[in-house]
Structure formats: C-alpha cells, structure tokens
C-alpha cells in the first residue's frame, strides 16, 4: 500500500470527472491510497502573469502535502510540470526560496522542501511497474489499436524531470498501454502540443493544433486516442466536436484517459470508469472489447 496526496488541479475535478473517477478506481485496485487535501491552483496559468506569484501558489501546495508527510501525485501534465519546475527552483535558487518561505510564513505555513511530485502515469510505470500491472489484467484488450498522446509537460522540459523518459521519442505511456494487450501504434510526434493552452487566446489556432493529431489518428485508423492530461483530453474529445462543426469534417475518434483503458483491462465496468462522460462516444470500442457491454 502506498499513499499519496492527490493533486487534482483545477481542470480535472470540473471538466474531466471521467479521468478522476477512473483514476480513483484504478488506484484502489492497485492499493494506492489517494489522499484528498485542500490544494489550490498549481501556478501554471499564473506563470505568464507573474512568475513569483505562480511559484508561491505552487509551493503552498507542497507545504500542505509536507504537513501530512505525503508526496504529491497529479493526473494533470501541466500541474506536474509547474509543480516540478517550481520545486526545482525552490531547491536551487536561494533568493526565491527565501522570498517564498517568508510569504508562506506570513500565511502561517512552513515548508522544509521534502515533498516530491510525480505524474500518476509515472508512478504506475516506476513504482507499480509494467510486470505487476500486467498481473492485474483480467480482460485482454488485444485487437484494439490506439495512438498515445503524452502531453507536453509529462516529459518536458526534460532536464527538470531527470530525463526519466525520452522527450523526443517517449515510450512509458506506450508501455503502459501494451500492458492491456492493446496495440500502441508507433507514430511520430507523440509529444506534440494539443493546443489547449492557446484556447482562450485564439480558438482557431488551438483547434487547428488539435486537428493535427486527429488527422494522424484518422489516417492510422485507430480505435482511440489515449491521453494522460485533462487539457489534452478536452482538446481532443470535446474539441473534436467543435473541430467537426467548425471545419465541416468527421473524425469520430474516441479519446480515452489512460486509467479508463487500464480499468477496462482490469475488468471494471465502463460506468465505473466514467465512459458516459466522454464527449465522443466510445460505443464501438466498448463493443469491440469482447465481453464488455456498452
């Protein structure tokens, strides 16, 4: 049994409840305890406005996790990125550290610098491991062809992450997918940007960026895109409907959060994994997975 402070971020609990639900189900199957704490924004969206403020926001969350003696696990790649980069800056830059410590102190908080953060997918890969995950699979998903999508901040900037995966040709999520028996296609640009960060600035640009991957997925005739970040999920799932309407094209490619795929392989029901909340309906995929009633 391992315990982590569960950092949901802002987007997942509001706009990607299927991701949250499936993550909790899968974690409990794997004996990973996810502890809910009153976390606030990771700082990522505020970095563009004021970096110092963003760093303070980030470190507040670390202080909270440390006070419970827990490391942080997050399901959002953007949160993982911001928390990791600010945590590194806290360790490396003395003047920033002192400023943050002062600000935390005036809010009645302290932080010694012990809490770590990792993405949930990374914990599955590094701590649980592919071999042990395979033992939890009761329903082989062979026959499914999927395309993985890493999300920028899961692997980049690679020097912040100690280069645990290759930033140009990442493989960890593909390995996790293959645990289920599904085939993960070897197509370049797995870590291309989904466009979500630009959505509020220029929607047309953001949708065009998302469409790049959808075109690849369509050309490869995949059963689903598999993502590990709520922003990527929203871009490709809900965004896909907008792209279809805006550009008069048809894709119909289901977008699954990785725990949804893993959960199917563990024999969990589509309902338990929040499939009803996927915008692009995965009916075809669920029927293809033998024995799973849509």
């Amino acid at each position, binding site marked *: 049994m391992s315990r982590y402070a569960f950092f949901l971020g802002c987007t997942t609990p509001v706009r990607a409840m299927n991701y949250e639900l499936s993550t909790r189900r899968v974690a409990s199957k794997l004996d990973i305890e996810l502890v809910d704490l009153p976390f606030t924004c990771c700082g990522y969206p505020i970095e563009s*406005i004021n970096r110092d403020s963003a760093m303070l926001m980030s470190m507040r969350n670390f202080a909270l996790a440390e006070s419970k003696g827990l490391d942080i696990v997050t399901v959002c790649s953007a949160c993982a990125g911001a928390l990791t980069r600010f945590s590194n800056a806290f360790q490396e830059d003395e003047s920033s550290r002192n400023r943050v410590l002062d600000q935390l102190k005036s809010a009645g908080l302290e932080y010694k610098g012990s809490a770590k953060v990792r993405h949930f997918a990374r914990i599955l890969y590094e701590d649980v491991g592919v071999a042990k995950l395979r033992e939890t699979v009761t329903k082989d998903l062979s026959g499914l062809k999927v395309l993985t999508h890493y999300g920028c901040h899961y692997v980049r900037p690679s020097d912040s992450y100690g280069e645990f995966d290759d930033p140009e040709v990442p493989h960890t999520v593909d390995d996790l997918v293959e645990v289920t028996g599904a085939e993960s296609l070897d197509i370049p640009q797995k870590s291309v940007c989904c466009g979500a960060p630009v959505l509020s600035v220029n929607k047309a640009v953001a949708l065009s960026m998302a469409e790049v991957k959808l075109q690849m997925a369509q050309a490869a005739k995949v059963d689903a895109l598999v993502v590990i970040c709520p922003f990527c999920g929203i871009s490709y799932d809900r965004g896909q409907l907008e792209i279809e309407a805006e550009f008069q094209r048809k894709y119909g490619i289901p977008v699954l959060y990785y725990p949804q795929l893993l959960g199917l392989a563990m024999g969990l029901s589509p309902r338990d994994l929040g499939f009803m909340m996927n915008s692009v309906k995965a009916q075809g995929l669920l029927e293809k997975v033998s024995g799973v009633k849509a």
Partner: protein
Amino acid sequence: MGLPQFARATPLHNVILTREEFKTDKSRKDFVNVSEINETFCRQVLAKPGGERFRACFQCGTCTASCPVRAVEARYNPRVLVKMVELGLRDRVLKSDVLWLCSLCYQCEERCPEDVRFPELMTVLRNMAVDAGYIHPSFAKLAAVVAEQGRIYEVDDFINMRRKQLGLPIVSTDREEWGKISQSLRFGK
C-alpha cells in the same frame, strides 16, 4: 553621417504582417525605425530569471521549425521574437498579441542548440507586458478568478452535486486559508 533612419533587420515581416500583407503593404513595418529601439530593454530581460540565456541565440530557426503554433499560424515566429528582443523593440514586443500565442510546450527549448530556453524568455516577456499594462484579456479574467477562488474554474453547487452523484468528494476552497496566500500575490503592477 549619423544613423540611418531605418535599419534593415532580419526578416520581421512574419510577425508584423502575413506574407500577403507584406507583398502589398507599403508602410515598411518590416523595417526597424531606430527611434523605436529601447537600449535598456535587452539588459532588463537578461536580468530576469529565465531571460539570462537569450543572447546566445544565433538565429538558426530550430525553434520556429519545431513550433506547433507556427505550424498552423504563420504570424507566430519564435526566432523573430528573440531577434526583436535583441534589437530592443520593447513596445512592439510587449504590445504584440502574438506574445500570448506561445503554448509553452517546451519543444523548442528541448531542441535549441544554444540552450536559449525560449518558453522561459516568453514568461519573462509576458510578465513585463503585464507590468506595462498589456495583459491579454483572457489572462486578466483568469487572474481575477484565481485571486478569489484559488483555482481557475469556479466549483459551484452544480458541479459538486454532479460530483456527489458520481461518488467523488466535494471540492471547495477555504476562502480564509486562501486569503492568507492571495494577499501576497501580484497580478500586474
């Protein structure tokens, strides 16, 4: 002799104008008027965390070739933005809407042979733009929600009701706790 009024710079037209506009526009916006040059801008950028590396840029264009925004939007060009900062075109850079198009995906940073760290430079420039009063409206809106709620989306009763139905825990921000942190936050000058 004195300085010429216009200095021909590295092509800036992709940032300022689209190719079509460039062909027809006679306003010479792709030229740098020396009166536009702010001599201290460069030093200000270099002094900020994240801005230290940009002078190493030798304009190879790997960033632009790697950029997923550039792939769909010709007006956006990271290489040119670096050049504009180097030239000291402070107002053009800080007022430009293309400043807010970077998706901070870090692809260029990963590939840059000079370790320029463009996304970090972008953060420096955006912070400076905000301080100069040029915040993008979508970010201003976001900052207002964060200052109050501690998160970028408000979690209202409807959301929490839906969460309850799904067996998910209620999400809420303790306003008093958040207030202690938010009083130290600065979202522009």
